[in-house]
């Protein structure tokens, strides 16, 4: 992404953050650490851009979209019900609401973020989101089977609707490791055959 945009982000960051949290932002190294550190603030207000900028090119507060505005997950993650992968929303989906002057955003930080989205759209560029949820490459996780079985997204992804910054739910919730999967498969009494997930 362009230098100007980088500067833009930095500016936003500075304005939003009190000096203390600045440290987190500047080291992009440990995104999750930064995110977790900032999480409480985010989840409380549901409005939290600056911290997100440390991880994501654009601050996308799930708390506002999925929480405050109660947008269904599948609205953006459109293939979760019919595919193994949930799908990352195309920029056009963002523009569906955020095309110039459609949705009024109260906070002016928010406005700045949305302008960035529009910039991407106008350049015909895609937004390089950073991947937060990832299983090992030799694990096959068919989303459609789990949605179809009536699981709620939050059962694996944590209380996304409260996250100003999307992050792995803390290990107490579930570490996304095999033991975690198995324990649930045992509770639900569903297959524990290896080649259900490994092939």
């Amino acid at each position, binding site marked *: 992404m362009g230098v100007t945009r980088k500067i833009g982000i930095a500016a936003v960051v500075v304005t939003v953050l009190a000096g203390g949290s600045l440290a987190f932002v500047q080291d992009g190294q440990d995104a999750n650490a930064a995110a977790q550190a900032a999480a409480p603030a985010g989840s409380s207000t549901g409005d939290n851009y600056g911290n997100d900028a440390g991880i994501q090119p654009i601050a996308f507060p799930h708390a506002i979209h999925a929480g405050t505005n109660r947008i269904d997950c599948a609205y953006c993650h459109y293939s979760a019900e019919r*595919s193994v992968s949930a799908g990352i929303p195309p920029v*056009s989906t963002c523009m569906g609401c955020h095309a110039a002057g459609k949705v009024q955003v109260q906070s002016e930080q928010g406005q700045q973020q949305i302008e960035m989205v529009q910039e991407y759209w106008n350049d015909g560029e*895609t937004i390089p989101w950073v*991947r937060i949820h990832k299983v090992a*490459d*030799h694990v096959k996780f068919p989303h459609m089977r789990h949605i*179809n079985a009536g699981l709620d997204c939050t059962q694996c992804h944590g209380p996304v609707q409260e996250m100003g910054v999307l992050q792995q739910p803390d290990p107490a919730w579930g570490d996304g490791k095999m033991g975690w999967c198995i324990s649930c498969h045992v509770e639900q009494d569903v*297959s524990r*055959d290896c080649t259900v997930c490994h*092939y």
Partner: protein
Amino acid sequence: MSADMSSGIKRRDFLKVVGVGGVGAGLTGCSTESAEKLLPYVVPPEDITPGVATWYTSTCNGCSAGCGMWVRTREGRVVKVEGNPNHPVSEGALCQRGHASLQALYAPDRYTGPMQRVNGELQPISWDEAEALLAERIQGAAGNVLFIGGAMGPTMADLVDQFLSSVGGSRVEWEGLNEAPLREATRIAFGRDVVPHYEFEGAEFILSFGADFIETWVSPVQYQRGFARAAGVDDEGRKGEFVYVGPRLNLTGQNADEWVPIPAGGEAAVALGMASVIAGRIGNAGPYAEILQAYSPEAAAEATGLEAATIRELADRFQNAPSVAMGPGVAGQHRNATAANLAIHILNSVAGNVGSRVRLVENAQSAPSRPYGEVEAAIRSMASGGVGVVMVHGTNPAYGLPPASGFNDAFAGVPFKVSFATEPDETAAMADLILPDRHFLEAWGDASPRPGVYSLQQPAMESVPHFDSKQTGDVLLSVATRAGSPVGPATTYDHLRNRWQSLHQSVGVAQDFEAWWRGALKSGVVEVPVPATEEPVTLRQPDAALIFDTPAFDGDGEFVLMVYPSSRFGDGKQANSAWMQELPDPVSKIAWHGWIEIHPAAAERLGVDKGDVVTVTSPHGAVELPVFTYPGVREDTVAVQMGMGRQNSGRYANGNGVNAMTLLPAEAEQPSGGLVHLATRVSVVPTGDVYRLATIEGSDSQSGRGIAPAAYIGSLGHSEDAGYEGEGEGEGGYEEKPLEEMQMLGGFGAVEVEGKAADWPLPGTERGDYADPETPRWAMAIDLDKCTGCSACIVACQSENNVAFVGEDQVRMGRDLGWIRLERYYETVDASHAGTLDVRHLPMLCQHCNNAPCEPVCPVVAAYHTPDGLNGQVYNRCVGTRYCANNCPYKVRVYNWYSYADVPEPLNWQYNPDVTIRNTGIMEKCSFCVQRIREVQNKAVVEGRAIADGEVVPACQQSCPAEAIVFGNIKDSTSRVAELAENERTYRVLDKLINTQPAVHYLKKVTFHEVEDAAH
């Protein structure tokens, strides 16, 4: 469709995703890499769902057969090609070369962009400059433009011709494998300028005079399927006979029931001898009556050293059954090839096969196969300086023509040479300007394999971003415009649509064009009724002088040299595919390197053995090759494969073997003008060197183990204890043994083996069932009477399951990773006289034993049995003790000795994201395409329905042209596999000896001769 093709950004952007993260799934990165980027679309193409494959139809251009393709793409990147079931030619199957076209798409050696040769060095140049330069040169050439092209689709051909007519120039075509003599003979005999279509189905007596219709001849996929349907035994125990006449057994010949090993060039004599016998009875030889007088069986016998009785007997069988005979093919293109083909036409004609099983109108091949004669003329005019600009597209004459033709010098002499090669080749190596064409999976085009069949070729993905290529059609159009003589619309796509618009009108369907066009893109093929013409069954007066005698051979060497097309490389086109190089040749089972086939007796006379290097000298050249002793070639004949010995190709082809064409004269057969391939004698002299050939063949004898038993056709229908009790002494090789004894011989624990295979107790169920109580039990049936050993399944599997290639030295050590090993055992192969032939082909893959020896020995339960009857292999659990491989009696487990999967960009783009990529230290094997099973299961569960029989199709079954493989749920008694498992021919390899209870059920090959001892 076209909409989102033109706005390329989406596909290409999504490819970035693939580039960053998704290329296959490796076993290396097990931690979450937060650095990984997710790149969504800007606007999602309506036809792509992440994680769900999207299929496009296209047309294979691996050879001129024009098989229909289904192209599987994931997130905008092609990951596999399969046969298009709607297509009348291939009917869903695809050959090994077709699969390999995928590697050409991602070939790391492809040209990265247009280039100009500046004092010997290739310099990158922009498309704009390049086109300007070419336009300027063409204007300068003042009409002396020569375009040398390969076989191309109608639209492209038309476009090129328009271009040439506007800028002033001529086009010649050069295809290494063309049937000019057959075409000419057809014209002479019946007055139709086509390559006939041969209808195998319904034939009960098939006679091939050397045509390799399973490997390369005319339309191999279609003909192999037809052959398998005709020669495979049916439920009534009827089976078509196949007799092969020729000096060398190619793979097609190995599938024959009888072999008549005539000397090279003797086809005409035998065919006419037979024809004369038949004509003598029902005589309608027409204008050829007196020729037949001259060729009595006795005369033919004298000419070929056969018994006259043999020929009469062949004639009887040919006349008394619905029969078909076909010509010598490329390997048999000698100086009298047209006459030979004509003789076979006469034979077919007198036996009344023309019009029924030899079709001259319906289904006849219309793919132009222009003769070598034209090329000769072109070379002359190049040499005489009559050519200002020469353009080469889709063919490689600098490699494919015999050096004697003088092409290279003439070509080098042309002031400006342009190559449209996609990847480097010998001709491009001499070119001044290189304008890389797109691979056919990235480009628009069409084909018309026969009258009435129009097949579309559409881009299945945006062009691979590593390579800045441009469709040659578009280049020509823009050059024409720059040169001041524009040709119609600006893009190939528009030309294509225009042509199809006119086609649409000519067909006169109710639909409006757009709908019809989208329908055509969807199904990939359009069939329009051909104007009904009467099949010209009667023979015409010959209008050319023909000699039916055995042709002359150059030189006075001890052996006649046969140069035969490769079933892996064709004429060398697919040589730079690592898959093709590593695929063991179906006949010799040798990978990567070249060889010369010599009869064991002859080899003994020469004092050489397998691997000894010999010098092969013809009057036209000399090469050095290691020996492969092959009982399937006459003692007075040696054979060398085409397509090897590339010099300026990519990293996988260069330097493997030698180019057989260097031994041949550059001579056009008369009157057809086809290039002669069977024209010279050679002397063979040992050099004393030894070359360790990379072969997968351990032993060509079954050593009395009944690995691939056969059933005498007379014994069918008589055995009471059919099915799993089928093989007793003399068949399976082992007599029945009491259960205990079998367990002593290697069973693990007392396993009940009475009853049907479907009822065997299932290990592994303690690991829990799937949701529904009706857990399927997957099994496979392979009909060895249909299997021809063509090896298409191996490549299909390799492509589907990310099976890595390992290179020559690793194969030499025995480390090839093929999940399917096509075993080839000789039973009766005798070149000394006409008679019975018995070669057994058996695809050996993981048998998914229900009492598997590999499972109990794995210390970490990486090898275990799944509840649905698979022998699971959990890659990420494998520690790599190799105990399972040691204990596998079928030796189907292969091991990653290194990280073979690290292939150069962008070859890794081909990897199937649904299958884990294995790195070093991991055991792998056939998984019954478990990813496909799971895909269907997931779908079925979400849609809340049961899985239908035949819904799960593993890659090998999908691509098998012979329809020999059937996969399904054996617990469902109505499924085809359950039915076949109870067939009287069914047996399970080694089951009687070590009680492994395989889930793979083989159906014995059926022979026309008694099978005596246990080895059979």
